[in-house]
């Protein structure tokens, strides 16, 4: 089967979703990110890998944190970065996505970081661009947000290095969350034995069990003995009908408080992809408490995005290489 994310040698060509990526690639990204963490602690927080390359942040949907961290990551790789808020520019004048992309390619863009409200937008662009151009999905609709999933796994690995021994709970609005989907794929691929989702029925996709997760509707039950709690944002802007009585009611049942946190293991960590609704899905005491790793997640997000862009932008497109090389041994260079 043709995987649009990998070239014929099995190397990463685009990052569109975690689904379909082999463990080898996930580990390559995570291990490379490990090397980038230290770069941010130096006098000069830059490496020269993407010198002369132009990275285009194409944000058809707003996201301050994701756009900023992608921008910082690209700049720390020495790329030139253009951030376009397309919702407020050409799109409103009727230009299609691919026309926008073609125009930027004519300006010699080398990489696109794409955020779009429509699932599949990044795939569409990846299928369209010539082989030397790379696409990173920075969130598409309800579908996928691979760099968020990767940075979450990276954060977990930092605090709980033995992934094969963890119980992890994802709590909240799984239905509207591309983050949850990416997290679940990453965690199961990397061999986490128990991934739980905790949510009311109305906020779970049908047949969520098929993703390999254990389903809980009761917070007390689901949080018992977990090592990691990943809270999700209640996505008011994506909710069409009234699926919940009120946000106060939601907080009472599914909000993470100090009392509920005590049900998890005493050294459990608390995560949130941001932006947080304090007092809706998470209590301020917990968000700012000593078990919270919410801000380290942001810091590690830069290292993950640097790793992804550095892996994508290096080397020649597979067609231009003289020898094929086997998919089992990508890159192969000593």
């Amino acid at each position, binding site marked *: 089967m043709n995987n649009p994310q990998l070239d014929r040698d099995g*190397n990463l060509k685009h990052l569109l979703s975690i689904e379909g990526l082999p463990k080898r690639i996930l580990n*390559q990204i995570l*291990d*490379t990110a*490990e*090397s980038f*963490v*230290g*770069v941010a602690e*130096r*006098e*000069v927080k*830059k*490496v*020269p*890998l993407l010198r002369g390359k132009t990275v285009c942040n194409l944000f058809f949907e707003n996201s301050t944190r994701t756009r900023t961290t992608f921008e910082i990551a690209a700049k720390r790789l020495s790329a030139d970065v253009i951030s376009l808020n397309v919702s407020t520019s050409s799109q409103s004048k009727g230009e299609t996505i691919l026309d926008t992309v073609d125009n930027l390619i004519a300006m010699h863009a080398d990489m696109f970081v794409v955020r779009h409200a429509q699932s599949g937008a990044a795939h569409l662009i990846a299928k369209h661009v010539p082989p030397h151009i790379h696409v990173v999905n920075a969130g598409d609709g309800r579908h996928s947000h691979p760099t968020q999933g990767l940075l979450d796994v990276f954060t977990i690995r930092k605090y709980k290095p033995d992934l094969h021994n963890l119980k992890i709970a994802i709590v909240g609005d799984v239905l509207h969350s591309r983050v949850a989907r990416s997290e679940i794929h990453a965690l199961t691929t990397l061999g986490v034995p128990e991934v739980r989702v905790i949510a009311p029925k109305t906020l779970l996709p049908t047949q969520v069990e098929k993703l390999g997760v254990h389903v809980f509707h009761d917070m007390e039950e689901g949080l018992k003995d977990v090592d990691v709690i990943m809270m999700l944002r209640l996505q008011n802007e994506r909710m069409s009908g009234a699926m919940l009585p009120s946000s106060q009611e939601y907080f009472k049942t599914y909000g993470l408080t100090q009392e509920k946190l005590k049900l998890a293991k005493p050294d459990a960590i608390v995560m949130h992809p941001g932006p947080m609704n304090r007092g809706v899905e998470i209590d301020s005491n917990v968000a700012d408490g000593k078990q919270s790793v919410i801000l380290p997640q942001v810091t590690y997000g830069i290292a993950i995005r640097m790793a992804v862009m*550095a*892996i994508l932008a*290096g*080397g*020649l497109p597979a067609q231009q290489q*003289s*020898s094929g*090389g086997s998919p089992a041994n*990508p*890159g192969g*260079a*000593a």
Partner: protein
Amino acid sequence: MTENHSNSPSPQLPDAEDLLKVLAQKLEPLLQKNTALVGIHSGGVWLMQRLLALLENTISKHGIEHGTLDVSFYRDDYAQRGLKAENRPSQIPFDVENKHIILIDDVFYTGRTTRAAMNELFDYGRPASISLVALVNRDGRELPIAPQIVAADIPLDASQHLQLTKLADGTLALELTKHNSARTQEHE
């Protein structure tokens, strides 16, 4: 990696352990109060660890610090070859500013790794000086860079690949292999 041992009856490679002792002797006079050792992954780091043990007295007398570099992010063949699948974090746990840095590498070849290492070091600060120590110097320089101290000169042609390996018992050995035809020149 080891299977090629027999098929290249090389002009007697010297014993890496003997060379290591020579290197330690030559290195010792360079060690002063303000020097720091930096090993380049992987061979250079193994060498440094052995040198730290061999020169323990001098090193503790002067309070000499050490670190490691993985130059993957500074290599000049990134555009052709991409990022190596395996790379390790560089670790420089001391202030580079005004230090006399001694870089340690296993095989000095084109000089490109040294250039990459120097570029990376300068992103940590401005050292007082940088010198280069290598176990083996082989022909093939492509940049105006040369090691100050080497334990042996071994001229080799471009089709040969010389590298340091670490054996199961922790001792070091030199290994000579033929290049795969598909591979271009090594970045050494």
